[in-house]
């Protein structure tokens, strides 16, 4: 009986932890977007105020950013220095998918971000600043949506975790 009880506790515990992890993932997605918003702000300032070149800006922002953005930005700067004949849009897209695809960011946001590189590197500063502002607004909207759903989703993840644990335990008993 004691063994069964311990087993039940373990199953329920494991399922709850799974639910907790899923809830953590929801929170992580939101945090990652907030971090991305900060990076876009920095990039905007580097372009508009400092007129910094993109590799230099990525290098500077990358060194003070958190993972996975740090690796993403630094790898882009590195790739640009390699001069392999790729356009900036290609480098941006390739690196975005490689570093941010499985980073917990909502997939729709990653897709939009990957397509964003085509608007960089042109001669018109105001176009780039405007494009960054538009993307910033989009990220802001996605974050708002996420915030609205987040509490409910987190609660749901926890509940489903516990409930599925109990369900499996009942089945096993």
């Amino acid at each position, binding site marked *: 009986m004691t063994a069964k009880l311990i087993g039940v506790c373990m199953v329920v515990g494991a399922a709850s932890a799974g639910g907790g992890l899923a809830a953590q993932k929801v929170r992580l997605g939101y945090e990652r977007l907030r971090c991305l918003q900060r990076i876009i702000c920095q990039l905007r300032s580097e372009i508009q105020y400092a007129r910094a070149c993109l*590799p230099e800006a990525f290098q500077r922002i990358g060194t003070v950013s958190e993972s996975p953005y740090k690796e993403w930005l630094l790898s882009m700067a590195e790739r640009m220095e390699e001069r392999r004949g790729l356009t900036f849009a290609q480098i941006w897209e390739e690196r975005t998918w490689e570093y941010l695809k499985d980073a917990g960011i909502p997939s729709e946001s990653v897709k939009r971000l990957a397509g964003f590189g085509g608007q960089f590197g042109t*001669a018109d*500063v105001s176009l780039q600043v405007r494009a960054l502002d538009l993307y910033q607004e989009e990220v802001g909207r996605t974050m708002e949506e996420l915030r609205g759903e987040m509490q409910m989703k987190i609660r749901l993840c926890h509940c489903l975790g516990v409930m599925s644990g109990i369900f499996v335990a009942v089945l096993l008993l």
Partner: protein
Amino acid sequence: MQKERILRVLPRRVRVLLEGERLQYARLQEIRLRIDKPLLLIYGGKERIIRNQRDGPYIVTREDIREMVEYVSNYSLYAYEQEMRQGFITIEGGHRVGMTGQAIIEDGKVRNLRYISSINLRMSHEVIGCADQIFAHIVTGQRLCHTLIISPPRCGKTTLLRDMIRQVSDGNQWIRGMAVGVVDERSEIGGCYMGTPQNQLGIRTDILDCCPKAEGMMMLIRSMAPEVIAVDEIGTAEDVHAVEYAMHCGCRMLATVHADSMEDLRRKPLLDQMVARKRFDRYILLGSQGHAGQVEGLFDSRGSLLYSGE
């Protein structure tokens, strides 16, 4: 170092071709790329057509030009709007990348270039000691004369100015080391990369990179108290006023200007007044009949010949 700096801005296919050419980069003067035209080099004073593996001349493509513009601008054309307006960008090492294409006009002035069709990469060469022969004539009683270097393009005026700055800054047998302020509007004198000069400009030199000359001279006078100010290619009214202001502030002046001769200089508006007012104590006229950087003549403030290179 020179080789890497040059190769890294070239399109991949051109890079491969030049690597196969076994060039002495110190002798390389220009690389010219024009869409649908052969790739040309000016090498050791002579033109050279680069051939591809099939032994025909390598024809530059639109893609090559696009790729090179991306490399030259570090994928960031917006950061070079000011330079593009003048038709060229200076890259690491002080090499000048000139471009032509279709001009975008705003309020009657060139704002930028698009559809770039030709690129000319002109090498900057640091020749340590090329100003040695000049110092005997531009220093009088341990005092540096206000000096203007006059030269047509590609005759080595920036190279000479650079070595003069280095020697004035470090000091030599003619003059003690002096604090030199350099306004390097197009990063050609110092060849600055991220604010640090890549060329030797001496131990007492402060360099203001990518700054308009007139404004830069004022900033230097106010902030760094230079004994000598050096600028390249003066010509506008603002430049001339700033040069005169700097002279009145007690700074010695080293400057360069585009002209073929003293007569040509006197025909230039604004500069003719400077000559008439005897603002400069010495004029160094360069030519390239023998080699780039050859001093054809050295004149005093009245325009009398002091020394002839012939």
